[in-house]
């Protein structure tokens, strides 16, 4: 049985690991390589690393840093941040990264997704949609770390990216970022219903039951989280953590409505 994926999402900026709230107020939480090593030990399902400075500063991906992560990472790795060209995507995959994520560049030129898929295969192309819920209740994609409005609907754009051959859609709720009050279920469900490619939801997870709620609602999807896996306790002390295989299995089996223990889990 294919399992839902529980994915720590690490935000990096100037080689440090940060955690934001509402895409702002980045708090320094440590050294990314140290975090990768801990997630290796904890056997995380997958790791997502987003360089939040690369696009905003207009600099390209830091290839040396990416190579270092790819070598260090013993689980699948998805990198995003500052990717604007097919050549960059090819180079990143060549460094041993499983998936390359595009965001702002793909919103301004969707064809980029098709071009990257042609070069490295659909399975390795991810699009990250940063979505804000506006006062009128409508969802809108924003770019450049949530500073630019696009007027685009995430549901329609998800369908479009699927047609262009994207391998995975990451839906990131800007207003939930760092809030730790749960995922935006409505947003997740709407994108899930409109598409068939693998989907990962990011933004808002504050406890493990938020993940099981998401899986209960949307089925076998990726559940990504930042704060949940880097903070502990009310005062948000920095402590890298990840559920044990037993806890993870119980959580996901319950969410999918399956009894007992997932076969073969250890």
């Amino acid at each position: 049985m294919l399992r839902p994926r529980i994915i720590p999402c690490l935000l990096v900026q100037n080689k440090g690991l940060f955690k934001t709230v509402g895409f702002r107020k980045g708090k320094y939480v440590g050294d990314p390589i140290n975090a990768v090593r801990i997630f290796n030990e904890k056997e995380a399902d997958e790791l997502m690393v987003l360089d939040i400075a690369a696009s905003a500063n207009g600099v390209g991906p830091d290839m040396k840093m990416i190579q270092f992560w790819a070598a260090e990472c013993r689980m699948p790795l998805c990198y995003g941040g500052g990717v604007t060209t097919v050549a960059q995507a090819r180079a990143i995959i060549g460094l041993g990264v499983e998936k390359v994520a595009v965001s702002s560049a793909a919103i301004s030129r969707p064809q980029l997704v098709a071009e990257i898929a042609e070069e490295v295969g659909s399975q390795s192309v991810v699009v990250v949609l940063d979505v804000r819920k506006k006062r009128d209740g409508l969802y809108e994609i924003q770019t450049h770390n949530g500073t630019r409005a696009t007027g685009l609907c995430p549901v329609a754009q998800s369908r479009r990216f699927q047609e262009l051959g994207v391998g995975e859609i990451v839906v990131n709720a800007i207003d939930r970022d760092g809030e730790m009050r749960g995922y935006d279920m409505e947003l997740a469900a709407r994108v899930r219903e409109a598409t068939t490619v693998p989907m990962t939801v990011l933004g808002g997870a504050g406890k493990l039951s938020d993940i099981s709620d998401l899986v209960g609602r949307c089925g076998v999807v990726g559940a990504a989280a930042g704060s949940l896996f880097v903070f502990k306790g009310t005062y948000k002390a920095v402590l890298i953590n990840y559920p044990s295989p037993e806890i993870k299995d119980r959580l996901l089996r319950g969410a999918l409505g399956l009894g007992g223990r997932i076969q073969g889990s250890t």
Partner: protein
Amino acid sequence: MIRIIDYGLGNILAFRNVYDRLNLPVGVAREATDLEGSTKLILPGVGAFDHAMERLEASGMREAITTRVLQQGMPVLGICVGMQMLAESSEEGRRPGLGWIPGVVRRFQGASLALPHMGWNDVAATRPGGLFRGIEQDARFYFLHSYYFECREPADSLAVADYGGPFTCAVNRNRIYGVQFHPEKSHHWGVQLLKNFAEM
């Protein structure tokens, strides 16, 4: 020495790191002369089938590898698209594959099936021991693909997984092996599988 074939596709470093941590000798082959002194070969691969075949051809290593595998019986392990390349052809492309194991690479079918097949799935070996020595039935491995290997001879299927129905996720004929999943990214089970290949 195990040699990882570097023709520009796949995670060479990740395999290297696994074997370095296990203190097993490993090297990388970028051209035919690098293959001297090899005892086993790893053929990684990601991306489109035709592109991978073209790159292997362009590397100038195809003939030297074929001689070793087919005439000298050197063990080889194809990974992901590297496994698919062992087949005769693929629905994904027009180029012929290496044709070392009879079969065709097909695209998953099913309107409700999310593609690519992405994530952790259970792998059941049809023959215990060998590549799967010490790996429990239904151990978890990481998959990332939309095409699978359809063996013509059922005996060549070494393991199956289920995605909209059972499919072959590992193949073996003589000393030729292939796995569709990524052992280099599958934590301790993946390390065990790569160790098994090294110790065969």
